[in-house]
């Protein structure tokens, strides 16, 4: 596979696109591993953050693809502990955001991460139409998407009895404005890489 196919027309590596779109330069990474060391999710990751940093540094299409196909990028919780401790001040959560967008765009989402993606999608769809999160609707939507019918079925009545579940969504006054924002954001440059 030539890099021309993998990347945008200018033969750029993923690291180049990342730098252009987000200003984050992963070439600064010197593999100290402090990010992975403090990551609450590192144990479950196929490639902890310092490893995918190195993979991206090589600029090799096969390794870039492996990163985009990895589960790791979806497991990042954006807790920012890596970023605040990174000696090179690399905004790693921002890199993860970028990689997720690229992974989704290219259809490389790891099978085990699809539920996470479905959840995010259900979440955004909920606010796309109502402006505010309609928790019940979102969860139902997520269940339809993930087919996880039984999960949380036992907690829901408890929540309801405690007055924690709204049965009807709250809508913002100008749903059109919301849709306009979504439409504009869909043209985000990052989403196109």
């Amino acid at each position, binding site marked *: 596979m030539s890099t021309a196919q993998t990347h945008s027309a200018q033969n750029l590596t993923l690291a180049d696109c990342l730098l252009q779109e987000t200003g984050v330069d992963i070439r600064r990474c010197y593999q100290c591993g402090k990010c992975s060391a403090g990551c*609450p999710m590192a144990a479950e990751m196929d490639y902890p953050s310092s490893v995918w940093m190195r993979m991206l540094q090589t600029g090799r299409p096969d390794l870039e693809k492996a990163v985009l196909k990895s589960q790791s990028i979806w497991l990042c919780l954006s*807790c920012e502990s890596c*970023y605040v401790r990174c000696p090179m001040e690399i905004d790693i959560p921002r890199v993860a955001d970028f990689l997720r967008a690229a992974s*989704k765009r290219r259809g490389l989402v790891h099978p085990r991460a699809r539920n996470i993606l479905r959840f995010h999608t259900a979440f955004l769809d909920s606010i796309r139409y109502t402006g505010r999160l309609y928790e019940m609707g979102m969860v139902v939507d997520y269940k339809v998407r993930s087919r996880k019918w039984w999960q949380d079925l036992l907690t829901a009545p408890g929540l309801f009895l405690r007055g924690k579940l709204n049965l009807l969504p709250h809508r913002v006054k100008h749903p059109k404005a919301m849709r306009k924002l979504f439409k504009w954001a869909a043209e985000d440059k990052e989403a196109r890489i």
Partner: protein
Amino acid sequence: MKMGYYPGCSISGSSREYGESLLAVLRALDVELAEVEDWNCCGASAAHNLNHTLSLALPARSLALAEQQGFQELLVPCAACFSRLAATRKALMADDAKRRQIADLVELPMKNIPVSINLLQLLQRVLPENLKEKLRAPFDYKVACYYGCLLVRPAEVVEFDREEDPEEMDRIMEKIGAAPLDWAFKTECCGAGFSVPRTDVVGRLCARILDDAVSRGAEAVIVACPMCHSNLDMRRQASESHSGKKYTIPILYVTQAIGLALGLDAKQLGLQRHIVPVRLSAGKSSQILENAPA
């Protein structure tokens, strides 16, 4: 003093006791809040996961509305919303072009974007020096103050307290007579947005947090974020099934603890809404707090 208020979706839904206790306590402290009209969801934590521009656009609309409604400061009690709103303000102040684009889309000026502050910052300002004298029932328990991720980091966005081992909530707890513990998981992530899609992960992360708090003798974990609360409270079962231990330690919002110390009614503070019953040992402040699950 009247301050802008951005409640966020959780407070309007699954975490309404946070909102209830917050309003009750601030009322008792003579702090008036005015909710931003027609605010919308900040998008956390789904938006930035999928589309960076959307993650700026969603909070930007609420900020623009707040600006139009004349607020210079916004109280944002949810740590996730706070982080998104603060990060958006920072990003848009640095990027004129993007700010103007969004301003055009929402048809609002966006010139002086209001500053977001979290609940601890507000309490830091409004809790009186002589609070101890005003307490009806000092909250004299050993507490583990849990800050979570987004309340204190990254420093360049939140500009508040220390990134590692923060102290402000501990100071507030001391003011209401509690004994904050020195513990190790103040800022370790609870799994935030994975509550629904990866409950197993949340169980593992929360178990670590609860374990450390309990082993150091904490009688309650104090939080200032609905995400933290729902993971530590609502997902208790997941934690227990991960560690094979039983945890009875209750999770209280910082406002609930203050409210109790000020002598406010437990119901008013929404204690009955918790999944893990709030039972605090007797004989200390001569108050037994108990709520039967409804």
